[in-house]
């Protein structure tokens, strides 16, 4: 079952006794949570709806709740958050979870109760008995498998629902700047809606309003470095340091980018295609594509020297007290002068 099916089925009272929501997508899990809460009429919520966090409440409390009949109502909803006992994750608390009780319950789930496991994990430990059992019994909704194109479509339809327009470029920019994270996008959209009063979301608005993730900033930095825009690169570096970004971290990302360029350059000269490069280097094909485009303008020697310069910077960052900014500036100067 996917998210849309779930969200459509719940209001129609097409409800199963046990659900398992797997994956970390805050926005979607919030939506799902709200949909489940809506199953219980507002006035009954104090009695017939409960949410338990397994990291500080024992499972038996939730099970007791699930096993009791709804109080003057049709249905009881029990949310079980962070059921880490379904995964191989270790949590340091001494809560004794009644796993056997859960397995017993799963054999005969209470028809008047809806138990929802909200598991914000990439995957469960399928070897555990309780996990196997749960997967058999529960209606599973995997929100991890929300691909980039799905995110895009979702965002697009959300924007259209609100009578806003957004062209493909701007939408891509939005997704790029948020790293394709749905929760972040949904968090940024209200701001954009408010700013763009003429109902058109422009790239300009996105550039100014949407918070750049570190990745995105670094991405820009790498671009500036590669395009030899010294002043911009130095300014951005300065900003990143001001924002308390770790110089070593920034350097490491630069190093990895240059390493990729070198690898691509060498392998490409051996006649590897974009696809085989991606599989050899285990890097996203799009990055390879960009790298292939970038290396056109560079000499092997130039890249090599830049790479070595960055490595040298790393050594200096770790071993001396030289200011990172000075090191970066010197690197840029020697890079452009070649």
């Amino acid at each position, binding site marked *: 079952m996917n998210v849309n099916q779930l969200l459509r089925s719940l209001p129609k009272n097409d409800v199963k006794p046990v659900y398992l929501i797997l994956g970390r997508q805050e926005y979607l899990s919030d939506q799902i949570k709200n949909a489940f809460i809506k199953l219980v009429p507002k006035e009954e919520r104090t009695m017939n709806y409960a949410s338990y966090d397994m990291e500080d409440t024992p499972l038996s409390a939730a099970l007791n709740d699930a096993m009791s009949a709804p109080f003057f109502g049709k249905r009881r909803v029990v949310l079980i958050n962070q059921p880490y006992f379904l995964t191989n994750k270790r949590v340091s608390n001494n809560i004794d979870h009644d796993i056997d009780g859960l397995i017993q319950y799963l054999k005969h789930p209470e028809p008047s109760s809806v138990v929802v496991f909200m598991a914000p994990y990439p995957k469960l430990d399928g070897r555990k008995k309780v996990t196997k059992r749960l997967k058999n019994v529960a209606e599973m909704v995997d929100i991890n498998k929300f691909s980039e194109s799905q995110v895009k479509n979702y965002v697009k339809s959300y924007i259209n629902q609100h009578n806003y327009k957004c062209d493909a470029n701007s939408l891509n920019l939005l997704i790029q700047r948020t790293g394709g994270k749905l929760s972040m996008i949904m968090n940024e959209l209200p701001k954009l809606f408010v700013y763009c009063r003429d109902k058109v979301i422009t790239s300009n608005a996105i550039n100014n309003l949407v918070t750049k993730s570190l990745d995105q900033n670094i991405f820009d930095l790498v671009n500036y470095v590669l395009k030899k825009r010294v*002043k911009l690169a130095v300014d951005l570096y300065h*900003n990143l340091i001001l924002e308390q970004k770790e110089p070593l971290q920034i350097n490491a990302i630069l190093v990895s980018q240059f390493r990729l360029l070198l690898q691509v350059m060498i392998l490409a000269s051996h006649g590897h295609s974009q696809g085989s490069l991606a599989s050899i280097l285990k890097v996203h094909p799009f990055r390879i594509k960009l790298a292939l485009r970038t290396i056109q303008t560079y000499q092997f020697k130039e890249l090599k020297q830049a790479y070595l310069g960055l490595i040298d910077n790393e050594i200096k960052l770790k071993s001396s007290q030289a200011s990172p900014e000075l090191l970066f500036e010197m690197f840029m100067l020697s890079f452009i002068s070649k």
Partner: protein
Amino acid sequence: MSYRALYRVWRPQRFDEIIGQNVITQTLKNALITNQISHAYLFAGPRGTGKTSAAKILAKAINCPNQKDGEPCNKCAICKAITNGTLNDVIEIDAASNNGVDEIRNVRDKAKYAPTEAKYKVYIIDEVHMLSTGAFNALLKTLEEPPANVVFILATTEPQKIPATIISRTQRFDFKRIRPKDILKQMEHILKSDQIDYDDRALKLIAKSAEGGMRDALSILDESMSYGDDKVTYQSALQVTGSVTQDLLYDYFVEVVDHDTKSALMNVQKILADGKDANRFIEDLINYCQDLLLYKQSPQMIEDHELSVFDDRFKSLVKKVDDRIIYKIIEEVSNIQQQMRFTSHPDVYLEVLTVKLANIKITPKSSDDGNQGLIDQLSGQVKELQSEVKALKKQSIASQSKLTKVNPEHNKPRPVHKERHEQPVKINLEKIYPVLNHATKKDLNRIQNAWQELLPMLKVTQRAIMNVSKPVAASSDGVVVSFEYSFLYRRADSSKELIQALEDGLNRIIGYSPTIVFVPSQKWPTIRKNYITSNYLKQHSDNQNHHNQSSQSSSGDHSSDSNSKSDHSSSDSNDKNDPKNDHENSQPNPIVKKAIDLFGNGIIDVKND
């Protein structure tokens, strides 16, 4: 009324007055106009970019009854009360000093009550990143289910310290550093409206050293105003920022480059006597050097970005000075800069630095010349050596070919000789020979194919040993495995467990378990040759031997050295087919062989009479 600092006097009271954050203020205004106020905002950005000002204006605009186009009127009682910080419904909390759970719980409990005078209760939590983890969690609960008519405005300089859960519940605005141009404009505006004279260069200097913070800029402006008797002069700005003038830097730089140690030292003393900070001077010097280098690369770029104007002297300096000298200077200066952190006498370091820099004069140039000389010298040496090597080669080839003619097997035991001394390795020849007796190419191929399959079946440690191994000969009931390194050979040979595992594995793959014998790879050629010679002798006459040998020695003239090697590699694959070649090469001598077998090659030096 007592004097109020510029940045307080000019603290923006309307969204329009916030400099350099147009998009953010526009968004906030739009939200107010369309009544789409979020229940929580997060203002992030470096200091002096307008976060707290924006928060206060927002608090006013939300509550102001005369709000127009999203701007507060600043005239009504509520606006005034908020400006003065006396309105009960707008609560400013400094999270830096109220960072505990209790304070936030207090906020949470009070947030439940409806506002008394204004429409909204506004909590402005400044420096929110200082909250403790517990406090954040307490706050999170409130942000998750906010009471009606409460607005939280969080302001911080370090958004990365705020938990993602908090950020995702707020509308985040990133305040950008204000561009020097905008700071400049604002300062001009302030000075004009206060009717104060100013020097253009001074403002540029201040705008540059403020690093994007308006408050910093205004503080510096304030100081230089009081310093310069209500006038802003270049001199006073320099004094306040502690910068050294471009002129002074230029003089110093030229003196250093011209190796004028005396003037440079005097210059330094003058700078220090003026009360400049030595550290600051060093920073300026590095910046100056960088500007020089940058200007060399692309004059346009630096002129576009920097506010500082470059005069003709600077430009001529750029042309005059060599890159390498500048690099060298930067290196020295940054070295000294680090040392200066740990000293209480920076002046001394600065003077030493000056002397050092003035003496760089020759080093870069001469090191260049020196390098060239060195390179010439080295390349000369290389040539000499090359010719020598050539001559030697000729000689050796000639002598070797002589040797081989006379005595082809003379240099045979040599290559192994050294190894033997280092690691005496025992090899179980009794086990090897039976395998070799029945060795066939087919069996070897089969084992070699199975080998790749076999390796993954082993334990990691075993696999590590066996990775460098390869089967070199095989019969239907045995296999000889050679090892790249003799220490691994010994490890393998002494491990019964490994042999067991290998036999099991082979059994599974090829259906039977051959006896496995190990040899170190550098021994293998000798062993095989010995084997072949001993066996071959039994079957063939000396006659044929002679015949082959003569043909062999004629070809051996060219490749006497590599001969044995290439033979081995080819014979590895040919195995049974080429006993002849090998045989000739090693010159059969059953007695010698027997002796080697008995005593090992290590102690036997075979000499031919």
